[in-house]
């Protein structure tokens, strides 16, 4: 187990370096920060001076080498807008995003997996059809639209929850549900098909032959085997959830990395965008590592090469 973990952790480094190359190039290709950061009264000389001051006039390879050099010292540069440490600014916003994403995943798991199990166990029933129809509907609706809809219904009309912001658990409900609707459908469908697959396998038949209760068969035997692909999907969905969080955060004025990085991209605040992508990528990679470990726990075959 430990060598496996060590190997996986070591693999994180090249992955992150790859991420830095992509984000570094993409953000630079997409536009010049002097357009929006400097006033229109700025002369071409002012713009050149700004670029020189921030090292943006150097060849891109030199800029990258400089960036990576600093990266290993834990320095991700300073915002071009307010000259704050980019890493500090991102880390300040990270807890809110993690909170939202984790809550959304929890909701998705708590609703999506049972829905998938029920749909599989009662295949063809009205319940199955309803669940799958709901999943289809959930998958087709835009997060943005769902968010506003939930605000109108539960905050403006029924007044059960606050509209926006982050001030305690009540504020978390609507954004978490909104974001969970992004992940839930796939999770439910995946659980359903995976359950159906194991449902007719020998070990399930054996369990049934032993005279075990239906519930025990489902939860102890079938589900455990069926969960492996579901867990994989869950890890991948987490990345999608982080992306979905950008939309959800702006609809609910949730003070996370999403709204923050959007603003930075808009202004071409290179260091902040780089720091945010790098931090989010790290979170994503670590989460997937965690999920892979979970995988190992679920499927002993993976442990031994």
């Amino acid at each position, binding site marked *: 187990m430990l060598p496996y973990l060590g190997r996986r952790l070591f693999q994180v480094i090249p992955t992150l370096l790859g991420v830095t190359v992509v984000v570094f190039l993409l953000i630079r290709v*997409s*536009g*010049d920060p002097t*357009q*929006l*950061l*400097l*006033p*229109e*009264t*700025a*002369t*071409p000389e*002012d*713009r050149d*001076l*700004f670029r020189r001051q921030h090292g943006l006039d150097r060849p891109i390879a030199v800029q990258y080498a400089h960036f990576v050099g600093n990266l290993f010292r834990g320095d991700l540069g300073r*915002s071009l*807008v*307010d*000259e*704050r*440490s980019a890493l500090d*600014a991102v880390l*300040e*916003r990270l807890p*809110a995003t993690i909170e939202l994403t984790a809550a959304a995943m929890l909701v998705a798991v708590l609703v999506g997996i049972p829905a998938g199990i029920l749909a599989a166990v009662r295949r063809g029933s009205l319940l199955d059809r309803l669940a799958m129809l709901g999943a289809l509907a959930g998958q087709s609706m*835009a997060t*943005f*639209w769902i968010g*506003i*809809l939930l*605000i*109108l219904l539960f*905050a*403006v*009309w029924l*007044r059960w929850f*606050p*509209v*926006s*912001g*982050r*001030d305690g658990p009540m504020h978390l409900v609507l954004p978490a549900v909104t974001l969970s609707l992004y992940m839930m459908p796939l999770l439910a469908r995946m659980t359903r098909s995976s359950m159906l697959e194991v449902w007719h396998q020998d070990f399930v038949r054996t369990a049934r032959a032993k005279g075990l209760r239906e519930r025990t068969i489902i939860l102890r035997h079938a589900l455990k085997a069926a969960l492996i692909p579901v867990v994989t999907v869950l890890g991948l969905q987490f990345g999608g959830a982080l992306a979905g969080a950008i939309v959800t955060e*702006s*609809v*609910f*004025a*949730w*003070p*996370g990395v999403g*709204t*923050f990085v*959007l*603003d930075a*991209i*808009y*202004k*071409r605040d290179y260091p902040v965008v780089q720091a945010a992508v790098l931090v989010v990528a790290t979170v994503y990679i670590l989460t997937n590592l965690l999920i892979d470990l979970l995988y190992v726990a679920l499927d002993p075959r993976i442990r031994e090469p």
Partner: protein
Amino acid sequence: MGHVFEGTGAHADDLAGARYERWWRRATATVGALVVLVLAVGNVSAQGNTEPERKVALTADPGSLDPYRDNSVVGVQLQGHLFDQLVDFRGPDFTQTPLVAERWENPDPTTWRFHLRKGIKFHDGKEVTADDVKFSFELAQASPTAKAKVANVVDVKVLDRHTVEVKTSGPAASLLANLAFVFILPKADYQAKGAEAFGQKPIGSGPYRLERWDKGQRIVLAAFDGYWGGKKMPNRIVIRPISEGSTRLAELLTGGVDVITDLPVENVQQVRDNRDLAVVQAKGIRQIFFPINTKADTPLKDKRVRQAINLAIDRETIVRDVLQGFADVRTGPFGVKQMGYNPEAAKFLAYNPQKAKALLKDAGYPNGIDVTWNLCRGCWLKDTEVLEVVANQLKAVGIRVKINLLEVNQLLGNQNTANFQIGMIRWSRQVDSDTIIAGIQAQSSTQKWYADEEVDKLIVKGRETLDRTAREKVYQDLYRAMVEDPGYVFLHAQDSIWGKRAASDWNFNAFAGNGSLTLFFR
């Protein structure tokens, strides 16, 4: 970086445009319809508002509260509470309002001697002195975004604890207007904290002090007991960054906030129909100019073609039908109330499609022309809708417009490299005609898309003419020159539309000379 240069600002419209794809817009429209539905059901009662604390939803959280680092629209709106300037221009008519400077005189045309009010305190209790003023000028001069405001200041001298002398390179008629952007910062505190920390925990001598800042969540301002102008109401202002227009409206509907910025035009009627809410508008706050590249090898080189474009646009219809009245028509560089408005010259480019057709024919284009017009979605009020109507109107006289959709950064970048045919400049309403012209002409003349010797001469003359009557005449001449040989498509200046709880006594009298607004004014 006091001035609200709109290109730098993270304005709500801009962000929306950058953020949301077309389908989002459609979604918003659908949601708008649903809002109406919900309201029709009529369960929108909310508690009255208590004014000791006012909650305001703006579009974004500033990065820093240091005026010489963050000059976004939101940044300036907040800075106006924390800091004072030497002088400001307040209210709908921009009344000159002495703040830190009690009075001033000109010993000669290039010298301004400012006498500071005695006993003004920063939030830490220390007195505001001439050293702080000099220090603030130095910060402005070193700031990439504010330096244009003090470009003609060559020297700042401290004469005594309460007297500062400012020397300009030439007579500077717009100096005071530009000083509305120069906030006075405490030298000692700034130097002790360092620039970065100061921007996060600033103190100033303004009517409000920063009580709390939860990043991305809220900024709490508390009325400063020791304010030289007397303590302001409300006692506290809570500012929340909410980028999404529908969400701001929902917060207003539920009483979560008392005042919201940038109320979507689509929602104006429903806010008006709700007796708990009110619409507040500031006329003609954002001027939208469309620069024409007159130097590239296109039909736009010919001034008759540029006149024809201007003449073919029925601005009244656009303002009435598309913008629902939330804009002022412009047929030249200045609005009716601005210095230099020239009523005669204002008729020159007024709607006249026959004349437009004739001019095109004269210019040798009887079969019309093709032009490309750059647009960034969400950059100004109803931009896409307005431009589509403009394109239709131009088509009627034979000018075929290709709307070229760009991201704002790209649009401005193309302008800076003169790679465009018709572009866009946004500029906040300004106190002084010189600052308007400086803003829109700076790019044009450095990039040479539009350089007119007479225009350039008049700009300098206007800046250097101190006598008000003579100066008015200069700008009227400038107006004429700029419409006779137009380097822009003149269209409109749009309003700023806000929503508030009817019970809140906040109003727009609050406009300050730096395009900011002050949320404390009654």
